[in-house]
């Protein structure tokens, strides 16, 4: 883990809270940073308000620091394009090599996680650990806890109906591996989440279980503060932009659900079609045994139909393994995003309620009480984080779906090409003139 204050890295990352200007300190915030309004690395790092380099048992922060929710820094955050492209990437994670472990109490699969990084947060340039699904699940909960203002990527479904799906079949394991790999890659690509302490430990610790048992609260300040937001406040109106996001997510999830159903139905119909084809082809074979001159042509047709059947089976397998899981992941994703939106609403509700309470008290104070200030910070950070994450999410979603749908089209093209080849190849056979008797 990192020692002292981090260097100014070209990519975004956390920075010591000490350097954060106070949002309400007025113009001094600019001064503190050097007065320029162009996004400096420091401010860039200021985005993820909560991340800390040091483990502080009580989650407190050094005095004198607070959230950088000044308007300029907010603006900077929003202008920032956080898409890290390949050239600036300094963290690579791969999930592969699933292995089955048979123990007395249970059988389970572990996956190898290989990490390569030049970041200072990592003591070594390379790590290789093995993790199982529950470890991923642990990581995700920890991320949700510690980064409540961010959108945490989804995991593949936890529960599988035993007996219906074979948890240890090659196809299932491969599908899951791909999803877990995607999960880690999404975190890796996130400018804030990728620096999360738990994530680091997940990637590097030799004995994760021991670490889990320690139960050390690595809660960030934000995490801690959001955690304490009481749910008792009701938000009157969601601000327009978040309402729009909420509506979007609702419709989006709905449409994906429909697409999932359609895709499943198509696969079902294709499988039934396949069943009939498997009976159809051999009948030509049977017929060929009755014939003389027609025997070869009929046998040829039978073989051809057999080839098409195989191609169809490959198509349905691909769609089941590659297409459906990604759809479902995105539905899970949007569900978790809606929870984050709700949390945001709570934060805003609390702030507004407290603000109102102050106003009602009619006390003549020029200064806003500290706890109301804190609420405002929270809310503004949350809003900023969420908006930035939404934008990133939208971009990634677009790429993901472009790839997914193009992949679906590709698989269908390949299926038809295989069938085309089969049928074209028997035309000469059918046209062959029998040798004169």
């Amino acid at each position, binding site marked *: 883990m990192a020692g002292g204050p981090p260097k100014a890295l070209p990519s975004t990352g956390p920075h010591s809270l000490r350097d954060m200007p106070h949002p309400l300190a007025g113009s001094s915030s600019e001064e503190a940073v050097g007065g320029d309004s162009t996004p400096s690395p420091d401010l860039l790092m200021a985005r993820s308000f909560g991340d800390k380099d040091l483990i502080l048992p009580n989650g407190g922060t050094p005095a004198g620091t607070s959230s950088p929710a000044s308007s300029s820094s907010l603006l900077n955050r929003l202008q920032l394009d956080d898409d890290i492209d390949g050239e600036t990437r300094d963290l690579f994670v791969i999930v592969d090599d699933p292995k089955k472990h048979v123990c007395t109490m249970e059988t389970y699969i572990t996956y190898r996680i290989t990490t390569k990084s030049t970041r200072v947060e990592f003591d070594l340039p390379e790590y290789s650990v093995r993790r199982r699904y529950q470890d991923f699940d642990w990581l995700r909960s920890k991320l949700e806890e510690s980064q409540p203002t961010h959108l945490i990527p989804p995991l593949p479904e936890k529960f599988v109906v035993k007996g219906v799906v074979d948890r240890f079949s090659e196809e299932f394991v491969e599908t899951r591996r791909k999803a877990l790999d995607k999960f880690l890659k999404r975190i890796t690509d996130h400018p804030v989440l990728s620096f999360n302490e738990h994530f680091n430990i997940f990637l590097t610790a030799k004995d994760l279980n021991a670490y889990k048992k320690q139960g050390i609260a690595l809660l960030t300040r934000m995490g801690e503060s959001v955690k304490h937001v009481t749910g008792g406040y009701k938000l009157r109106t969601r601000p327009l932009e978040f309402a729009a996001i909420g509506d979007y997510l609702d419709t989006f999830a709905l449409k994906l659900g429909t*697409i999932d159903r*359609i895709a499943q*139905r198509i696969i079902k119909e294709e499988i039934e079609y396949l069943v009939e084809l498997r009976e159809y082809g051999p009948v030509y074979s049977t017929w060929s045994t*009755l014939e003389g001159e027609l025997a070869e042509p009929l046998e040829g047709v039978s073989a051809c139909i057999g080839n098409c059947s195989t191609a169809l089976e490959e198509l349905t397998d691909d769609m089941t393994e590659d297409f459906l899981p990604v759809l479902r992941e995105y539905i899970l994703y949007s569900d978790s995003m809606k929870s984050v939106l709700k949390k945001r609403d709570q934060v805003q509700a609390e702030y507004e309620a407290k603000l109102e309470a102050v106003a009602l008290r009619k006390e003549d104070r020029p200064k806003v009480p500290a706890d109301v200030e804190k609420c405002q910070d929270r809310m503004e950070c949350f809003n900023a984080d969420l908006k930035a994450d939404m934008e990133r999410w939208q971009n990634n979603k*677009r790429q993901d779906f472009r790839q997914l749908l193009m992949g679906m089209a590709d698989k269908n093209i390949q299926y038809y090409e295989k069938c085309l080849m089969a049928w074209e190849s028997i035309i000469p056979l059918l046209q062959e003139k029998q040798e004169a008797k």
Partner: protein
Amino acid sequence: MEQAPPDPERQLQPAPLEPLGSPDAGLGAAVGKETEGAGEESSGVDTMTHNNFWLKKIEISVSEAEKRTGRNAMNMQETYTAYLIETRSIEHTDGQSVLTDSLWRRYSEFELLRSYLLVYYPHIVVPPLPEKRAEFVWHKLSADNMDPDFVERRRIGLENFLLRIASHPLLCRDKIFYLFLTQEGNWKETVNETGFQLKADSRLKALNATFRVKNPDKRFTDLKHYSDELQSVISHLLRVRARVADRLYGVYKVHGNYGRVFSEWSAIEKEMGDGLQSAGHHMDVYASSIDDILEDEEHYADQLKEYLFYAEALRAVCRKHELMQYDLEMAAQDLASKKQQCEELATGTVRTFSLKGMTTKLFGQETPEQREARIKVLEEQINEGEQQLKSKNLEGREFVKNAWADIERFKEQKNRDLKEALISYAVMQISMCKKGIQVWTNAKECFSKM
């Protein structure tokens, strides 16, 4: 029992004309197209005839179908379809075709024609009619006889039937067939006047013969076996094909749902919207393409069905042989027993049981004169029997020879036709694959623009 060599009464007398299209008139020629000049072949028609109709090549088409209502035999209202049969003769000189005859027939008249042909040409594999009722349908197709698609396919099937007859070297010369094409009124009466129904072999007799015949020609036994198997395998094929069509229809149609959901989804998207929307359109195109594809496949199914029904025609020829053979065997047996009786009477030994012998024993001997009389009768019968047996033998051999010739002709036709059918089926599949590739490539391009 009628036999098969060209019966002067039933045949139109001119010398062999050129059958329409010659043996190559397979299914391809059958579908209402003008048959190409088979004029290159030497026709062998050099004798003048008093029936000019047959000198020229003819074209037959069943060009239209019409719904009619009328009163049936029980004076009840009924709806039926009538088919317009047009016959054209092609003038040799300029290749133009002139409409010579045009009349309307309904399905039952076709059936009558075929029944007649079966009786008078038992050694010929008589072309089958298209099915009376739609069978082997997959769910979208209607099994209704009045359905326009069914009527259309039947029209083609009936045309094919007539062309098959017209291209058969023997059947094409049949007078009743000629009248079918030319004489609208009174044709039914003419057919019935031939009394063919009476000449038809009873089913019971035929069944009996099948079981009891001892030495049928092995080729016919094998052929019967083959036709049974052929019928079974083609039925199976048609059944499964219908199910395959059903499933394929389902697959394509469900894709149409993508069209709508992509459109709805595109409404909430900014950059992705256009790509989704246009991809959805291609999914709609994909879904609707299946209708034409499966309609084309019905033609393939019809080609198979024709040969399914041909199996029955083959069996009919085999049955006829068995019947003749059985008849021959019975006649020979009868002759043998008569000879035996005669011998016994002559020599006085009684080896065979006869009623006369019994009664003689019981009621007294017969006189020598009586015995002489009986022997004489028997000898006459034996003579007759021997003549009959000879002619039956001859008939039997003629039948076998002619039938087998036609069967060989049929086999060639079948191989040609089915090969063509398989090729056209493969071509259909290729076209379907190409369309699929096109649609998905288009969709992929739309997705890439998302």
